[in-house]
Structure formats: structure tokens, C-alpha cells
């Protein structure tokens, strides 16, 4: 048992952090809700009790997975680019503009729209990446500022040039059907974008852990000077990690438009980029864990929506829970004493047979 705990300590720590988050949410619901039973049921079971919501749980995980990857790759290179939210927003806007104004068969239209969106995101990652690599400009502040720029620019593009005035509210024109991602599970809105997200997660895993560039990214993250003296082009790694990140966030935004709403309908930013930060931290920047973390977070999100609809608890509770979980996970010393005690006990147990020989 002790050995198991020591070996998987980090994993256990994350699970405990998540459990604490869940317990706190139960606690909050009990204090605030007038009908805690109903609220708890809505929050924890609301998602699995309806097929449509089950579908939106799976569906919603896909932009979160892609944004998680978008954050994790720069994080692995120790680059705090948290611009996934902006990259996602502007890419979806530009991609929508492109999709609406072009006519092609679906075989060409889908990949080219995705490519345009991805490249827009890549550009959005390139700017802070290049500034950081070249002049050490703080990528954290730049990427944050660019989130706002992306938001206003995206709205401008859609509201002024591609607004569907017949729709009655602020949305773009509908995408031509050739640019739709099929919803393939009847009764749900699970669409092809989910598969795209999973494939990209696997590809990113392969890229980070089984290619030279991936190795260079991780090495730069662990020790920049070592990487530099080892002949790694750190400049390239810093820029590339953020460009790839932006690309993935762009795909995440676009698949959501192509598969779900089929038109650009965000008047406020959807927050997937921020969830990307959360899942990258919960998943410790590992693409495979990010999938699990995204499924968890998307479950919370759908639970939050049910909560909003059926109970007196606002869905923002989920944001509070998320932030507490990240705080606990990033606190390295959290549970450290517990681990130390176990390590000592384990060491003592090993010492005994040696001691008896003397």
C-alpha cells in the first residue's frame, strides 16, 4: 500500500483535490439551496439521466480537450501563453467568414475551413511567441491582452460583415451545408469534431513524447540553459510551441461552430480557453490525462447548466470549484507531509531486516 501511494502520489493528490472540490460543492448546495436534494441530483446526475445532456457532455469536452492541448504544449516549454480563449474566438470568427463566403464540395470545404481557422489561431500564438523569443516580452500579459483584442476584432468581423440580419439576434450567416460537421449519434448533438479532438489529443501525445521536436519542447521547459547548450534552437521551440497551441485552439473553436451551432453565435466568449488552462493543470500537461480532465470538466459544465435550469443554484458554482481544484493541485506541498510520513514508514520497514543481520 505504501509503495503504491509513493509511486502514484501525484495522481492521488490530484484525485484528492478533485474530491475536495466535489465535497465543497455539495456543501455549498446544502447551505444555499432551498431544495438541496433536487439541486444535488441535478448537478451530479442531471447529465446522465438524459440522452441529450449525455450527448452535450461528450460534445462539450471536444473544444475543452483542444484548448487543453493548446495550453499544455506551451506550458511544457515553460511558456505561460494563456491566449487559447482569444485564439479560439478569433479563429472561429475568421473561419466562419471564410466558410460563409466560399463554395466548395464538402471534401474540400471542411478541411479548408479548419485550416483557415487553425492558421488564424497559429498567428494568434505566433505573436506572443515571437515577441517572447526575440525580445523576452512577457507572453503572459501579451496573450491576455490579445484575448481582448481577439474578442473585439471577432465581434467586429461578424457583426459588421457577416451578420445575418434576418436572424433577429446577433449571429453570423448560417454556414453552407458543405462546411457542416455531421452529428452522428441520433438524439444527441455529438458531432465529428469530437473525433477530431480525440485524434489531435493522440497526435499531440505522440508529438510530445515520441518526436525530436517534442523532446526539444520538453527539454526547453525543464531547463532552458541545458537545452541551449545542448544545441536546441530555443528560439524555434518557444515560437513553435505557441504557434501549435494557437493552431489547436483555433481548430477547437471552429469545430464547435461547424458541428454545433453551424453559425457564429458567441456574443460573449465561451470560456473554453480558460477551461483549457484548468484541464492542462489537472492533466499535468499530458495529452492523455487532458482527455480525462476535459471529460470531467465538461461533466461539471453540463451539471452546472442543469443546475441553472432546475435549481436555485447559479452555474457559476462550477467556476468556484474549478479554481479551488487548481489551487490545490498547484500547491506542491499540499499532502506533502502525508507523503513524507509514509515514505519514512516505508523506509523503516525496509531497515528492519538489515538491522537484524548486524
Amino acid at each position: 500500500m505504501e509503495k503504491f501511494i509513493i509511486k502514484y502520489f501525484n495522481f492521488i493528490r490530484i484525485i484528492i483535490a478533485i474530491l475536495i472540490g466535489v465535497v465543497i460543492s455539495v456543501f455549498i448546495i446544502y447551505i444555499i439551496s432551498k431544495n438541496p436534494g433536487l439541486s444535488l441530483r441535478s448537478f451530479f446526475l442531471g447529465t446522465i439521466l438524459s440522452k441529450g445532456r449525455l450527448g452535450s457532455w461528450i460534445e462539450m469536452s471536444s473544444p475543452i480537450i483542444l484548448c487543453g492541448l493548446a495550453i499544455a504544449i506551451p506550458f511544457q516549454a515553460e511558456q505561460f501563453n494563456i491566449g487559447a480563449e482569444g485564439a479560439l474566438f478569433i479563429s472561429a470568427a475568421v473561419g466562419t467568414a471564410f466558410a460563409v463566403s466560399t463554395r466548395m464540395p464538402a471534401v474540400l470545404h471542411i478541411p479548408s475551413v479548419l485550416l483557415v481557422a487553425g492558421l488564424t489561431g497559429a498567428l494568434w500564438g505566433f505573436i506572443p511567441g515571437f515577441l517572447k523569443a526575440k525580445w523576452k516580452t512577457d507572453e503572459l500579459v501579451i496573450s491576455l491582452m490579445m484575448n481582448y483584442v481577439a474578442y473585439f476584432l471577432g465581434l467586429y468581423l461578424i457583426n459588421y460583415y457577416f451578420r445575418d440580419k434576418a436572424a433577429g439576434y446577433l449571429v453570423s450567416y448560417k454556414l453552407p451545408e458543405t462546411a457542416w460537421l455531421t452529428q452522428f449519434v441520433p438524439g444527441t448533438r455529438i458531432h465529428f469534431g469530437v473525433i477530431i479532438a480525440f485524434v489531435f489529443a493522440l497526435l499531440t501525445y505522440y508529438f510530445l513524447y515520441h518526436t525530436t521536436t517534442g523532446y526539444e519542447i520538453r527539454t526547453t521547459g525543464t531547463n532552458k540553459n541545458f537545452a541551449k547548450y545542448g544545441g536546441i534552437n530555443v528560439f524555434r521551440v518557444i515560437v513553435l510551441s505557441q504557434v501549435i497551441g494557437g493552431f489547436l485552439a483555433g481548430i477547437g473553436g471552429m469545430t464547435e461552430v461547424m458541428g454545433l451551432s453551424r453559425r457564429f453565435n458567441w456574443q460573449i466568449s465561451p470560456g473554453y480557453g480558460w477551461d483549457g488552462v484548468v484541464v492542462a493543470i489537472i492533466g499535468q500537461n499530458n495529452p492523455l490525462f487532458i482527455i480525462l480532465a476535459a471529460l470531467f470538466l465538461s461533466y461539471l459544465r453540463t451539471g452546472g447548466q442543469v443546475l441553472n435550469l432546475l435549481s436555485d443554484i447559479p452555474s457559476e458554482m462550477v467556476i468556484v470549484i474549478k479554481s479551488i481544484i487548481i489551487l490545490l493541485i498547484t500547491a506542491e506541498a499540499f499532502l506533502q507531509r502525508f507523503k513524507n510520513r509514509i515514505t519514512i514508514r516505508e523506509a523503516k520497514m525496509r531497515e528492519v531486516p538489515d538491522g537484524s543481520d548486524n
Partner: protein
Amino acid sequence: MDPIIKSILSPKFVFATLRVMTPILYPAIGVAVSALAGSINIALEGIMLMSAFTGVMVSAYTGSLWLALIAGVLAGVGMGAILGYFHLNLKADIIIAAIALNMFASGISIFLLYVFTHDKGTSSSLKSLVFPSYQIPLLKNIPVLGPMLSGHNILTYLLFAAVVAYYYIIYKTPLGLRIRAVGQNPEAAESVGIDVNKIKLYSLLLSGFFGSFGGLYLSMGYVSWFSRDMTAGRGFIAIAAASLGGNLPLGTLLGSALFGFVNAFAIFIAPLKIPSEFIQSIPYVTTVIVLTVYSINKTRKEKAVIGSKADNR
């Protein structure tokens, strides 16, 4: 075109600049004092939100401006304490912990706003108080200067006291000396018996203290209600303002003034037929440009220093 230029050249423009730089300079001092101690606090966004929210709620339910002020400041200092505890005691990465705190503040303020008012947007259904504005006798009668400097909110006047206080703390008190020592070389500071963690904690508490006034001003001066995420990135712009000013008092003041100027400019050109989306993005674009130019200069200077050292050898 003409009336716009006229309005920008009028004393009103300086008045507006001071008004909009208030919620930037307070958090900028907050960022600066933490950066001087070597652990930069990027949670000012969350600190301001918490103070803005707490101030409005306490003033609405107690009717006391003083209690609102105290509660708002405590909320800000409390956020600084949480960040300090997680970073210094639990060894959390300060950047990620701050991101989490910003998220927390955004979530909990909307959550509680809904619980109390059944509205997720603004607190306008509550009758909350605002900090008073004052005309300064004599000064208000002086042409040009009067309309620029008189009639401001008390928190805008206090802004200059805050800069002076910041100057005084870091240059004239033992704590300030220790903060600077810890920031420049923590090992050296430790070797002369300074408790590095304690000093860093104090700097984070001060950071929350200064930031809280920015939040209070937003919801109880700039406007008279709390609305969700009303800080709108000012806590992040403050990071840029502080780093432009080298985290020093006068520099931080000038850095914030620059962003105040740009923000005021954006407000004044609004009557032009420029899409509002462009105008609203001006402060953020400016931050990107200014920070880039600043870091280009800094890199050049560093290179020049390395070059001259090489020459001396």
C-alpha cells in the same frame, strides 16, 4: 472632426485621464510592490473584483461607507493572504495560483450576486453607496487647472497619496528595504537574517491593500454598482503599467498615466463613426505595442551593457 479635437484639448480630457487611470494605478502599485519582492502578483484582477463586490454588498446592506471601505480593503488583503499562503507555505506556482484566484473571484462574485439579488449581471437593484466627489476650494476657480483637478472622487485624490505612501514604504521604512533586498537577491537577504517568506507575504498583503482601492473605486465611484467581471482586464493592464515603470513609484505613476491617457482618448473619439469594437480594443492593443517597444529597448540596453563589459576586458 473639429469638435472632437477641441474636446481632447480641453481640460475635460485631463480630468477624464485622471478618472480612468485611477482603477489602473492602484492595482499597478499592487503589482509593483509584489514584483519588487520578487514574487509578482498577477491576481490583481481578482483582488479588485472581490473588493468591488464586497464594497457594494456591504454598503448596500449596512448603509455605511466606512464599513464598505474596511470590508473592501479586507477582501483585497485577504486575497493577497490566500495567494501568499498557497505560494509561500504550500509551494504553489504563483502564476497558476493567481490565475486560479482570478477565476475564483470572477465565479464567486457572480455566484453571490445571484444568491443575493437574483441577477447575474449587475447589482443595480441594490441601493449601494458611492464615495463622494469633492470640489477643491480656490483651486476650482482657477481656469483650466480647476476643471482638470477639481471635482474628482476622493479615491482619485487619494491616488497621489498612495503613490507617496508607496514611495515612503519602499525607500524610507525597514520593511521597504527588506522588500527590495529580498527581490534583488533572496539568498543574500536570508544570509543576513531576513525571513524571506515573511517579507514576501507582507509584500503580497500590501499588494492586496493597494489593489483593493482600485476595486472599490470601480464599483463605488467610477460607477455606482457592481457588474460581473467589471475589472475588464485592468488588473492585467496594471502589470504592463508597473513593468513599464520598472516597478518604482514615479515610473508606475507615469506608466498608468499613459494607459489612462489612451483610455480617455478612446472614450473621447467615440462620437466619431468608428466601430465601437475598435475603440474598445485600443487599450489592449496599446498595451501590446507599448510592452513590445519597452522590451525591445530593454534587450538592446542589456546587449549594450554586455558589449561594454566585453570592451573593458
